[in-house]
């Protein structure tokens, strides 16, 4: 075997703390290595051409590139060696950047370590075999989880691309947070006027199957062929019959139900359609508050309903769907303000969240768009906004910036002035984050045209004084403590991962960060992909995002799905397990351990043997580590290869 080793400087990224030339020179001593060189940027066009040239000139059988992490450029260089006529698996990478040059200061130690890492790559390469992918069919339907603006956008774009879409939303209507907003920055146009038509499109699109009040229960399979089980909760109303006339709501005597849509500003009826533009516009009974379902009495809605849609004994159901790709768009939830005891969150009725304030501003909200404070229904004249509540605060384990609250606070201050011209608004802020098109101009307008008083400093405590709220904060620019007597305090509660996000991530087999936000494949270059093929992200489930960014991501995720579906067949990753029939004793241990059901038991001349279904195997190697006979080996990561790496490190 003839091996070539290419050591990359990555400008000074590697070259600065690793003697790349010496690594190349030392690599010549490794077995089978016939060619080495060091190159400034291996991944650049001349860098790749150099590799191709060297393969051709020296008739190399395999190549090692010592450079950055394989998680970054392994696919790049695989294509390079393929262009030179080699099998793409006759290639190994040594990570001498992320794992060496960027973390060690001692050049000598780094260089030594880089040589060793190159050495183990050579040993592994010596045992590599050409591998060839198998093709399999792809199911060109897509599942979108979450019907906020991001999920809606993804669903519509996929459907317009002529693909069938299954949209799963856990609430009884789609729309997400945006449906609850009054107006939206930076244009201050009415939220339901721009979102409403999109929601209607979802309802009417022949390619979209919407399941509301539903959650994903289980996901099996792999890219191109996912099997999904969806649990649909019982609305106690037959939605095929319900026309959304709302007569039941008018007559329902149980009027103290939790009003989730209005963020619990006020309450609603046990049978309920959350808002007039709801999609689907269907009634739902909250079993916790329905008198019939809790005490067996009432049943008024059933009597009144013109279509006889009420079904008190309805059960939840499980629906199965097959799809080829999945878009997660489950959004965010708000930080629980009651964790700030010093602000009286949850204790003082006139200390509310920004989202509650949106409902107070909204013409379709519980106050009909008249701002009335919850305690006594009075119109507030002095309103204090407090930014960064549950954001940028390590003491509540939320060190990140929620991104959109500076902007929505400015918006709410502007809207407050529109609603109550003789009001005064104060905004306590630490920094104003408004880095978007027309965003900073917008916050400036809040100050310059609408006279909002911006006070640079945090608030330490809020307490009732008479029927007012005393807000005690600091003005750090003035260098002093300040107090404002407010009628209403709006806390810009930060965004946190949607309830249940980690559990969903586990079902999707994607990663999530310590706060529960889903992890993208690469923060810059693969922002809507995940590390699980066929699963994409859209919107604020990945991290707090405003509407423009969420919509952009919805479209980006749809583009990724459509690109995947543009192929008729997918190729599997050939790094799969294979059974050596001679060694296999048919014990079935591998069959039981495989998380993907990729191994089946077959009969070979009367004896049980294991066989791997090539397109199903995901290449985890669990079976390989389990087999007592060493009979089932994961290609490209065989026992021999790993032990050769160990030997290279230990036995020289």
């Amino acid at each position, binding site marked *: 075997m003839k091996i070539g080793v290419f050591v990359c400087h990555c400008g000074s990224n590697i070259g600065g703390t690793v003697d790349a030339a010496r690594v190349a020179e030392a690599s010549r001593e490794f077995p089978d290595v016939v060619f080495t060189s060091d190159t400034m940027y291996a991944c650049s066009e001349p860098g790749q051409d150099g590799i191709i040239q060297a393969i051709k000139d020296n008739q190399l059988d395999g190549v090692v590139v010592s450079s950055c992490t394989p998680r970054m450029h392994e696919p790049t260089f695989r294509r390079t060696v393929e262009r030179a006529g080699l099998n793409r698996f006759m290639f190994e990478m040594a990570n001498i950047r992320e794992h060496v040059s960027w973390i060690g200061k001692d050049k000598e130690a780094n260089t030594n370590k880089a040589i060793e890492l190159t050495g183990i790559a050579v040993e592994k390469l010596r045992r590599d075999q050409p591998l060839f992918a198998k093709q399999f069919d792809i199911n060109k339907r897509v599942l979108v989880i979450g019907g906020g603006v991001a999920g809606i956008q993804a669903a519509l774009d996929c459907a317009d691309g002529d693909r069938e879409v299954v949209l799963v939303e856990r609430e009884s209507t789609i729309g997400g947070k945006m449906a609850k907003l009054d107006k939206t920055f930076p244009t201050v146009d009415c939220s339901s006027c721009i979102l409403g038509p999109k929601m209607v499109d979802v309802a009417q699109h022949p390619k979209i199957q919407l399941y509301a009040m539903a959650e994903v229960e289980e996901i099996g399979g792999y890219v191109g062929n996912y099997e999904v089980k969806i649990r649909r909760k019982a609305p106690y109303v037959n939605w095929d019959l319900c026309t959304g006339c709302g007569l039941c709501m008018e007559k329902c005597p149980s009027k103290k139900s939790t009003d989730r849509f209005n963020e619990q500003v006020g309450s609603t009826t046990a049978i309920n359609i959350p808002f007039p533009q709801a999609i689907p516009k269907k009634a739902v009974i909250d079993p916790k508050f329905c008198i019939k379902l809790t005490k067996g009495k009432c049943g008024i809605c059933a009597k009144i309903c013109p279509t006889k849609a009420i079904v008190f004994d309805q059960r939840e159901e499980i629906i199965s769907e097959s799809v080829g790709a999945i878009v997660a768009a489950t959004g965010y939830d708000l930080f629980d303000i009651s964790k700030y005891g010093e602000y009286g969150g949850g204790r003082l009725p006139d200390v509310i969240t920004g989202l509650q304030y949106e409902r107070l501003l909204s013409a379709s909200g519980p106050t009909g768009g008249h701002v009335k404070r919850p305690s006594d229904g009075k119109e507030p004249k002095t309103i204090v906004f407090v930014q960064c509540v549950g954001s940028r605060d390590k003491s509540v384990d939320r060190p990140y910036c929620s991104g959109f609250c500076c902007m929505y606070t400015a918006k709410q201050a502007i809207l407050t002035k529109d609603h109550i011209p003789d009001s005064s608004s104060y905004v306590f802020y630490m920094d104003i984050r408004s880095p978007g098109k027309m965003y900073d101009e917008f916050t400036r307008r809040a100050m310059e045209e609408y006279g909002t008083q911006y006070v640079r400093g945090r608030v*330490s*405590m809020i307490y009732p004084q008479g029927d007012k709220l005393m807000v005690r904060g600091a003005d750090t620019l003035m*260098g*002093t403590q300040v107090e404002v007597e407010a009628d209403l305090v709006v806390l810009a509660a930060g965004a946190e991962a949607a309830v249940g996000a980690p559990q969903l991530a586990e079902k999707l087999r994607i990663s999530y960060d310590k706060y529960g936000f889903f992890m993208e494949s690469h923060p810059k270059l693969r922002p809507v992909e995940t590390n699980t093929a066929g699963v994409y992200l859209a919107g604020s489930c990945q991290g707090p995002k405003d509407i423009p960014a969420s919509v952009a991501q919805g479209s980006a995720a749809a583009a990724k799905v459509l690109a995947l579906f543009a192929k008729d067949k997918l190729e599997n990753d050939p790094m799969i397990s294979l059974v050596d029939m001679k060694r296999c004793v048919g014990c079935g241990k591998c069959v039981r351990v495989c998380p993907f059901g990729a191994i089946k038991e077959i009969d070979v001349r009367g004896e049980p043997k294991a066989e791997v279904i090539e397109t199903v195997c995901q290449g985890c190697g669990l079976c390989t580590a389990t087999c007592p006979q060493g009979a089932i080996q994961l290609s490209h990561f065989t026992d021999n290869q790993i032990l050769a790496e160990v030997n290279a490190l230990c036995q020289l």
Partner: protein
Amino acid sequence: MEVVDIHASCDHEFIAKVEEESEQKVRLCYQCGNCTAGCPYTFVYDIPVSQVMRLVQAGQKERLLSCKSIWLCATCESCTTRCPNEIDVARIMDVLRHMARREGYVAEKNVKKFWDTFLDSVEKHGRVFEMGLLATYVAKTGRFWTDMELGPKILPKGKLSFKPHEIQGKDKVAEIFKRFREMQQ
């Protein structure tokens, strides 16, 4: 207003010392002002507590050790409890006070005298002798008891003893002070 050369005047050794003694990282402070917002004593401070934090970050030793604020902090723990970065601000105030004492800065003489008198009393008797404490304080400050009007309120209640409550182990307590002073040297 004075122009500060932030490079030349930054006393890195001082910052390191504050961090070491308080076991806090002053760089964590992002100047939100929450401590100042909550500090009940801001109205008598010459430097609000968040600016004390800023001055520590900037290594402005002289200004800090000579300020009044560090003597007027009551260790009420409001700042420590509410700091978003979990900085024990009250402890930093304490440490600055320790340093000021060591280096002979006293911006609030009477406060220091009161505390010193208190500890003298403990050292002497093992427990605080309230009446003696007041008498000594008055003698030390050379100020007539400013709380004169309280006399008629409290004396008839028979609460203030004219005799110290000596304890058996008062030598042991005195010993603590002695060893502490030896250790300081």
